[in-house]
Structure formats: C-alpha cells, structure tokens
C-alpha cells in the first residue's frame, strides 16, 4: 500500500520541519528509521509514536526554557496551568461528546439503528476541532493552559487514529 507509506513519510517530514530546533535532530532520526520498517502499518504506528515522543520532548524543552534557573514557584505555576488545561479539555470533551451525540441522534434518529461508524467520527472530529480552537485562542495569553489542552488533543487524536487503524475493516 504505497499511498499509506507515502502519507506516513510526508507526515513525519512535516513534523521534522515544524519541530522546535532542539527536537529536530531526534525527529529526523525517527524519520530515517522509517525506510527500514517493512510493514506500512508498522511504519504508521512508528510515526504516531514518534510524534508523541517529539511532543513530549518539545514540552519538556519548553518547560525548561525561559529563565536560566526557574524558581520552584514558576515551575509549579506552569505545571498547574498545564494540568488545568488538561482538565478543561477533558471536561470539554465529556460535555461535547454527550452534546453532539444528543443533537446528532435527535435530528437523525435513523442513524442510531443503522450501526454506521461515521457519526462517531463526526463527534470525534468536532471535539478535536474544539480543542484546537481552544489552544489557538489561549496560546498568547495562557500558554501553559493551551499546552495542556493541546496535549489532551494530541492524546485524543492519537487514540482516535489508532482506534480507526485497528478497527478498520475496509
């Protein structure tokens, strides 16, 4: 399946291009290994894991940036901000999931009996979009909180992609 392989490579190349400078070498290292992974699905999973690693490393680098010797208080405030962002994202996802689910099946009750998967995809995409908008809105004024929301969005998105990949029946 050359298309899947091509998409995976392009996706990881984009991650390399957009990775913060301290992470770029590691992102390139993970990209180079793709050539030696035989299965396309294994390559995709490798790329997903690579993205998670780069996000975590980038977050750690960012948390360490700023003052040379950040005080404990500053670090605690940043960590609290990130945790608050994660909590807000989880609350938003829970409320959003029930809300969108209710609206969708209220206006299209037939969908509930057809057993098609796409309404769930729509819900997931709407929630993911909400989290991305939240991150963009908060990025300038409350960056730690935005990072928390982004973190939740990445975890949720990764989970969603892995779920689709492992449950896809064509």
């Amino acid at each position, binding site marked *: 399946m050359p298309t899947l392989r091509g998409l995976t490579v392009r996706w990881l190349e984009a991650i390399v291009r957009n990775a913060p400078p301290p992470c770029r070498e*590691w992102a390139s290292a993970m990209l180079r290994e793709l050539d*030696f992974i035989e299965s396309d699905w294994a390559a995709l999973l*490798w790329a997903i894991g690579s993205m*998670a690693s780069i996000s975590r490393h980038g977050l750690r680098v960012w948390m360490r940036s700023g003052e040379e010797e950040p005080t404990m208080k500053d670090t605690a405030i940043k960590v609290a901000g990130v945790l608050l962002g994660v909590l807000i994202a989880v609350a938003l996802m829970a409320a959003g999931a029930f809300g969108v689910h209710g609206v969708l099946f209220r206006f299209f009750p037939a969908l509930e009996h057809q057993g098609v998967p796409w309404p769930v995809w729509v819900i997931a995409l709407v929630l993911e979009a909400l989290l991305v908008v939240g991150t963009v809105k908060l990025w300038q004024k409350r960056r730690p909180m935005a990072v928390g929301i982004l973190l939740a969005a990445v975890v949720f998105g990764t989970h969603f992609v892995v779920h689709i990949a492992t449950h896809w029946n064509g």
Partner: protein
Amino acid sequence: MKLRVSPQTLKVLEVFLEEPRLWRYGYDISRVTGLKSGSLYPILMRLADRRLLETEWETNEAGKPPRHLYRLTPDGLQLAREQRQGRPLNARRTELSGAEG
C-alpha cells in the same frame, strides 16, 4: 537530576550492554526490546540529555540517507552495570521476603 530507571529503561540498557562499543540503530533497539517508538525515544532522549548516551549520524554511503546511531558513554555503561548488578539482588530480596511472609 536523577534518572528514573524504569523496566523499559533497563531493557534498553541491557541491549547496549551486550556489546558496549557497538553503535546501534533506533529501530534495531525497538525490535530487540519490543518497545514502540513512543516509549523508546523518550528513554534515548533522557539518556542523551544526561550524557549517558552518545549519538552520531552514520557516515553516509552514496545515495543512502544517514541513520542516527547510539551507544552508551562511560558514565552510561557504569549506570547500566550498576543496574544489572542491582537487579538480581533486589529480586533475591523480594524472593526472600516472599518466603519469609
């Protein structure tokens, strides 16, 4: 900063201990340890941050993109050997406490 030596980190250290002077590729370590890239690379990054792991780009052969190579520094080797020696002792302690209890 103290390094948290998780069971996954121990697996990675074990691989490097097999042939300490040999440079290794990320995907090969992943295959040997069974760790996915999302678990393996954060471990490699942490080891490199603490100067326990040295990294190098492979000398490029014509037409082949270079690969990243890894091996433990002397400090890393020392840590790996200490962990290897410590583990059977801990396991023995657990067995002993289990037998006594």
